[in-house]
């Protein structure tokens, strides 16, 4: 089991590719920011930016932290912390009336 997992670990080349994708996504994010500043995207920038950063987040966790290649238990721990934090703080923001995303 574990040896198979080791074989499927990415190579140096793949790590660099992932980093390039991450860099491009960051560039798109910054680009979106200026695009929104010059021609108003009617609040569409927020979901797009959140999506892009989510993709970056998942790529770093999955590949750089090797979570994709680890036993499921670790994903459960990590996912539990993340989901609980999201849930609790979204409720908190809702209760304080600040959930509306700034556009």
């Amino acid at each position, binding site marked *: 089991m574990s040896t198979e997992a080791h074989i499927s670990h990415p190579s140096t080349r793949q790590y660099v590719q992932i*980093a390039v994708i991450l860099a491009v996504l960051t560039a798109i994010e910054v680009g979106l920011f200026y695009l929104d500043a010059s021609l108003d995207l009617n609040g569409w920038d927020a979901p797009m930016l959140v999506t*892009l950063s989510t993709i*970056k987040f998942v790529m770093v966790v999955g590949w750089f932290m090797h979570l994709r290649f680890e036993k499921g238990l670790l994903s459960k721990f990590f996912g539990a912390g993340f989901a*609980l934090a999201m849930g609790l703080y979204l409720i908190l923001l809702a209760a304080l009336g600040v959930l509306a995303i700034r556009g």
Partner: protein
Amino acid sequence: MTALHDAAPVHHDEHESTGIANTKLGMWIFLSSEFLFFGALISNYLIYGNRAFEGTVPREVYDIPFTSVSSFVLLMSSLTMVLAHHALSVGDQNGTKTWLLATALLGAVFLGGQVFEFTEFITIQDMTLTTNPAASAFFVLTGFHGVHVAIGVLMLLSLFGISRRQGGLSEKQGMNLELVGLYWHFVDIIWIVIFTLVYLLSAV
């Protein structure tokens, strides 16, 4: 238990039920709690980002090009970190050393950027921790992230130092490298979230 085992000394941590090393499992458990820590700080900022009776608020003075560059630096430090880990896993001790040092340097560059940003806000923009709740939330959030980066840099430098002194890292120290790597990437993903939610989405 066969008769062969009779003479073999046993240790307190003979086996790991899940097949994951204790230290690694512990690190992931710890990181899962860090979500709640940074979640609270980010929520603070989202609540307070516009809250000011007087003075400058952070969103008015963000230098997006500058922060984009330092975000890029931190992102690339994740690449060098994973390359250090990868080099060690294929037995390339020199590569490990190089990439460790590169990661620490990139982290230091990020920290330098943060010091520059804070200094600029405080001296030129006249926005300090005490100006208003928005500024308080900004400084405490990014400050705690910076403290995490600084701790990471120290751990990377000590690994680098050990590796230089011994001419390489042992198997156990390799596990330490993996743990530091997990911590480092985690600090990076927190910055990915901060960069988007706190900088890009709130700047004017």
